[in-house]
């Protein structure tokens, strides 16, 4: 089925050709802590101020942090105080009753953060200091309504794509909540969705990629909901996707899937061909080392562990995002950190590679 894997030449033109050279670990940011750490981290937004804003789920256990919280950190691993939501300076207005279920976030160029609340059924807009600018959303399963909204992606035309998890719909809104279009129905047939989670838009053809969480796949649709491609297999003898939570498309059209159930990130090329998996390779960072230095008995215990590789691995990653420098950010949720990798590659000029349509059968040399 060559036609399915290789889209037409017309839509092909925009995607650059690439020599992919794998991913190099850059840094790991954060530790297990409410402060200067990423306890409860779920999703990440790039601020317009060089800081990363990591959305943390309201923690109902401790009773101390029952408010929406963005951890604020940068590539150096530095943290600023957590950002808490407020309305007109009142933090009490943003307690657990009002926003009990933050789940996904994104940002625009001007420093507005957007997040979805799956229990309030709202999309919330706030500035980087946590001052709420707007929130909107009507609960329900009808077009334009929200039932447990999750994945959210801001678009350069100032629109938002929002996943409505419990209505199995993906919907397009203006930033102020005006409904533009949407698609999706519940089921496991190609093109149907079952508790979708993350969403991303391909910058080249504006197709919409959805992490079809409970169907163990990612699907690519046209903005009008026509199915283009199903990502569910990595090829023979490779573990298929298991409850993928997020998907993103980088500026080459490469697709990164947060394969949460398998604790890995999977990279495909824009044609849907499997390229590489990342399983996590983060050594302990300075924050963590400082932390351990005050715990002498734990330092001693570590000497009795032959295999410390486990602590480098992802555990229940929730989100993958790629910045404009091709750095791949993974919210490694159960390990309370961001793992950052850099995609290494060479971009190829047209004369360095044969056009796609000349490729018919494998050659050997």
């Amino acid at each position, binding site marked *: 089925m060559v036609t399915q894997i290789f889209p037409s030449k017309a839509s092909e033109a925009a995607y650059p050709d690439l020599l992919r050279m794998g991913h190099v670990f850059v840094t790991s940011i954060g530790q297990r802590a409410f*402060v*200067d*750490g990423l306890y409860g981290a779920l999703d990440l937004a790039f601020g317009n101020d060089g800081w990363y804003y990591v959305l943390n789920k309201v923690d109902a256990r401790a*009773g101390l942090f029952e408010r929406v919280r963005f951890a604020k950190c940068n590539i150096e691993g530095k943290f600023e105080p957590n950002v808490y939501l407020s309305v007109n300076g009142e933090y009490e207005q943003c307690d657990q009753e009002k926003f009990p279920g933050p789940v996904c976030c994104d940002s625009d160029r001007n420093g507005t953060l957007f997040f979805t609340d799956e229990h309030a059924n709202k999309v919330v807009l706030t500035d980087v200091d946590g001052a709420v600018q707007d929130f909107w959303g009507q609960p329900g399963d009808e077009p334009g309504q929200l039932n447990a909204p999750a994945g959210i992606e801001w678009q350069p035309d100032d629109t938002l794509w929002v996943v409505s998890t419990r209505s199995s719909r993906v919907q397009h809104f203006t930033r102020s909540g005006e409904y533009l279009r949407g698609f999706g129905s519940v089921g496991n047939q190609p093109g149907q969705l079952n508790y979708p989670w993350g969403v991303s838009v391909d910058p080249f053809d504006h197709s919409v990629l959805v992490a079809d969480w409970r169907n163990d796949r990612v699907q690519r649709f046209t903005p009008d909901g026509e199915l283009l491609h199903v990502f569910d297999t990595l090829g023979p003898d490779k573990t298929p996707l298991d409850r993928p939570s997020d998907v993103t498309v980088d500026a080459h059209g490469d697709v990164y899937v947060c394969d949460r159930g398998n604790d890995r990130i999977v990279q495909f090329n824009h044609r849907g061909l499997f390229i590489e998996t990342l399983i996590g390779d983060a050594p302990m960072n300075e924050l963590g080392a400082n*932390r351990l230095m*005050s*715990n002498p*008995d734990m330092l001693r215990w570590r000497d009795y562990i032959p295999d410390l590789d486990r602590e480098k691995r992802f555990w229940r990653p929730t989100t993958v995002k790629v910045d404009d420098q091709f750095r791949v950010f993974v919210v490694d949720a159960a390990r309370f950190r961001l793992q950052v990798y850099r995609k290494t590659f060479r971009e190829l000029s047209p004369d360095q590679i044969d056009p796609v349509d000349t490729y018919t059968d494998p050659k050997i040399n």
Partner: protein
Amino acid sequence: MTPTNGNTIKDPVIVVLQLSGGNDFMNTVVPYGEPLYYDFRKTVGIPETDLLHLDSQYGLHPALTSFKEIYDQGNLAIIAGVGYPNPDRSHFRSMDIWHTAEPTNVIPEGWLGRIIRELDPQKQNVCTGISFGQGLPRAMYLSGTPALSVRDLESYGLLTSMSGRRQRRAINVFTRMYAPEEFAEANMTLGHIGQTGVDALAGVDMLKPVPAQYSSSVEYADDQLAQSLRGIAQVHTANIGTRVFYAELGGFDTHGAQMGTQTGLLRQLSRAVSDFFADLREHNASEEVVMLVFTEFGRRVRDNGNGTDHGSGGGAFLIGERVNGGMYAEYPSLDPANQLSGDLHYNNDFRSIYSTIIDDWFHMQPEPIVNGSFERFQGMISPLN
């Protein structure tokens, strides 16, 4: 029976205040005279000038203003270096050890439960022990010994999901369903449940009028601890025979942002304790109350960058007019050679404090209650009578 209102002879009362999460004792009573303190506490240290100086070596956390006043009045005993053998850095286990006074074996019943049993062996007063907060702490639990757990005095009661006439009818039905039969029932268990229900209602009936009877010029803060202590003051001044009270302040697990968090909590503590004793004094009901403030463990000597992790060797306070204030016990050495896996090495068994209270305050034999013989802090408490 316990004496009730109007009696000139007062019965000793204890209020136990639990600081949950492991309060960092090194930043509560700060050994600022020891240079090592500032070596270990590079980011989580309190400058000497900010401290409330007790002497040339030690100072209280700046938020503990009322503790400083009480200390200056001679009514605050500071017990440093409190712990138990083989410290356990789990919150739950360490708290259990404090509650049961048993560091080796895991046992269900608490030391205050045993005191309550001694105070009221015939179980005549279901209000002998009352805890304010979420559920009954294990310290007050002893099978067959009644102790009440009150979240909020105003709303405490039976069938609280109802109101008005519906509730009155339901309570009437409950009362009659649970009333003991004139002759022994064939079903012993139902009889036991019935009697327990009658006891529970008795407690509810004793506590119900308490808020209405109370008036005070003291305005407590809105936080949970202040409200708990206000409830304790209400019950104590109502003279219904309660001898053991319990309250809790949580949030001391300061792995991060310790400076701000601990300051906020200690400020709450300071204000609430100050208001509480002012309230009692206003009601001429302060002399018979001592308050024990404890935490399950101290924290690491070395900070972790902006907080401190679980350690051992904590500290405790005893507060009251009958308490002879001062620094009891030696402050543990910060010298790395004397540390215990990066913690202050405890030099006082917590059961010494319990034994002192049980013996000097309640005039009971401490040994069966704390399960062993421990040195008392001589002269720390002046008995009531």
